[in-house]
């Protein structure tokens, strides 16, 4: 209840802040209806669209809602089978959240591609599950990385501290031991040792983390595990996905009969060239979301363009990228 009441206070705070920022608009709309709208949209996970990053990251519910919105808007891209790069995914994310940072997208891509190269191409399905893990459990993953580096460096698991990611450099510079040389070269650690450390981390960790059962399950599957291998297994773990509750299972990820119908209609109406299909899906995705527009969302949208949502303004939006 404690965590939930903090969340409630956060949303109340934000509701009042938003109200103050748009006094005239919302007073006309009516105060009671404004709060009704606000909390309904929070309840229905429609509240994060076009909001700033700090708001989206502030609660677990917001993060999950953002993943869900991203999925609903852009799953058509998945259907078309396009492979996109990190900057391209970032652009899509920026359509939904103007100040979305590149690093988060890069971190997600590293889970998919299991190396540092940020110029690889990823499928929508691969990207979104890794992105979900990264975005929802960022603090946890950062701590895991520190632990992992510790273990690689040969430090005894009993002395693992859990600092913030800024002190990673300090730990890595600790003198390494001669043992486990082979493991270091392959960049893997002993799974059971890692499992112990992860368990210890969960005991005192203040942010969200995936269920301990799932974590243990993943680590029991192999004797040795690499950092990105571990993360990949977590990203693709169905229980973890269901707990977050934002995305369907992999098989159902690209199913979207309503949008299929809409697109068929659109395609029938406009003249089709090979390039316009994928941009059409992005537009269509946004259109679907904006059909459920409220005065609140329109205000954010209006800051980019003058008029209330219709087809012409959306085309302007995507061409601004």
């Amino acid at each position: 209840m404690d965590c939930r009441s903090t969340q409630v206070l956060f949303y109340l705070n934000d509701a009042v802040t938003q109200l103050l920022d748009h006094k005239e608009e919302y007073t006309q709309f009516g105060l009671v209806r404004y709060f009704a709208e606000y909390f309904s949209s929070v309840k229905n996970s429609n509240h994060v669209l076009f909001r700033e990053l700090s708001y989206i990251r502030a609660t677990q519910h917001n993060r999950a809602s953002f993943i869900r919105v991203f999925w609903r808007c852009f799953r058509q891209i998945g259907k078309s089978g396009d492979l996109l790069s990190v900057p391209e995914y970032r652009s899509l994310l920026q359509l939904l959240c103007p100040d979305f940072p590149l690093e988060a997208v890069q971190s997600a891509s590293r889970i998919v591609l299991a190396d540092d190269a940020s110029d690889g191409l990823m499928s929508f399905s691969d990207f979104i599950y890794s992105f979900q893990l990264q975005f929802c459990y960022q603090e946890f993953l950062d701590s895991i990385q520190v632990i992992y580096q510790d273990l690689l460096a040969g430090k005894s698991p009993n002395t693992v501290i859990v600092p913030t990611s800024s002190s990673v450099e300090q730990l890595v510079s600790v003198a390494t031991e001669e043992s486990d040389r082979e493991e270091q070269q392959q960049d893997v650690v002993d799974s059971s040792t890692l499992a112990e450390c992860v368990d210890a981390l969960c005991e005192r960790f203040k942010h969200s983390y995936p269920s301990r059962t799932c974590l243990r399950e993943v680590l029991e599957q192999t004797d040795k595990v690499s950092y990105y291998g571990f993360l990949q297994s977590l990203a693709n773990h169905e229980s973890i996905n269901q707990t977050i509750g934002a995305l369907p299972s992999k098989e159902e990820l690209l199913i979207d009969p309503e949008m299929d119908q809409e697109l068929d209609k659109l395609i029938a109406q406009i003249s089709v060239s090979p390039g316009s299909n994928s941009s059409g899906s992005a537009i269509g995705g946004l259109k679907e979301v904006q059909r459920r527009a409220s005065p609140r969302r329109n205000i954010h949208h209006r800051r980019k363009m003058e008029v209330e949502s219709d087809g012409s303004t959306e085309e302007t939006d995507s061409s601004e990228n």
Partner: protein
Amino acid sequence: MADKEKRRSAALPSGMSSGKVVKSDSDREFLEQAGVGDLLRGAILKMVEARSDDPIGFLADHFCNLASVTDSGTAGCGDEDQQQQQQSTGLAGAGAHEQQRLNRALWHLRLAHHSQRSAFSNNVCVAYDLLNLNGCLSQASENPEGPDGSLLVVPPDAKGSGGVKGGLYMQTLECLCSEGGVPASTSAPLLRRLCCQDHEAVPYDVFRHGVLTCAVFSDYIRQAQRLYAEVCCPDEGPASRALCSAVLGTLKEALETSQDCDANCFVNANTKSSACLEANAKAIRYLEASAKISPHKLAQAMAGAQTSGPGGNMDAKEFENAAADLFIARVKVVS
């Protein structure tokens, strides 16, 4: 762009770590004038009272309800409210208002689980008040002096005493059961035991007893369904009759052990006569009863059944009905 900057800087301090947003004087004035403080205070008080499992959902519903009450036009939020609004602007004004009150009462009853006794009791109170026809709550009370049955459906004899109309009470119970996942056929015998006539005025303790019984019954049936799922392997068809009988037998034993305390519990719910001694005796009986239904006991019963007992199979529905019978047999008939 400048606007976005301003929005971002205003929103940043309202992160979870800091609770306060620095507001200017004009902002404070605006909030005061608009009555935001009172509005939010009222909402938070209600939320704390109800102790819902889902505070955000509660607030959403609360404000939507409020909006539909104060607005003359469409509320524009939850679907429920839109339906209610459309209903109440129709011709059957009184019937629609009653439906609206029923919906709101049910919403209150859903907020807290019956195991959270004080929160649940609170909510039952609120629901009772909502449904209680004293003639003062109805918004559409155009002509209370009018001919009987025209707008207010309370017959003359029930007006003075106050109480929930029997028909409304039964509707509440039916909705509670069906929302709890109990099929109508299973809950029918229970409802017959709790039945009140349409014209009767239902006093508070009867109302509370009925609501609590239905809430517990819904949970019980769900557990029975789960129990059957454990006993039965879906691939192999319906479960063996012997096994099911054994399980049901164990359940019956457990219920019988607790029977005395159940009866006392409901009867004495609203009197202050539960002495400390009686409370202890109740606790002991509950412990005994739960011991009877422990996994160990169940396993014993099931192992015994596999070697002897009736042949044939029992399907899910039959099991559910049998379990329901065990429960219903213990429910006091309302006279």
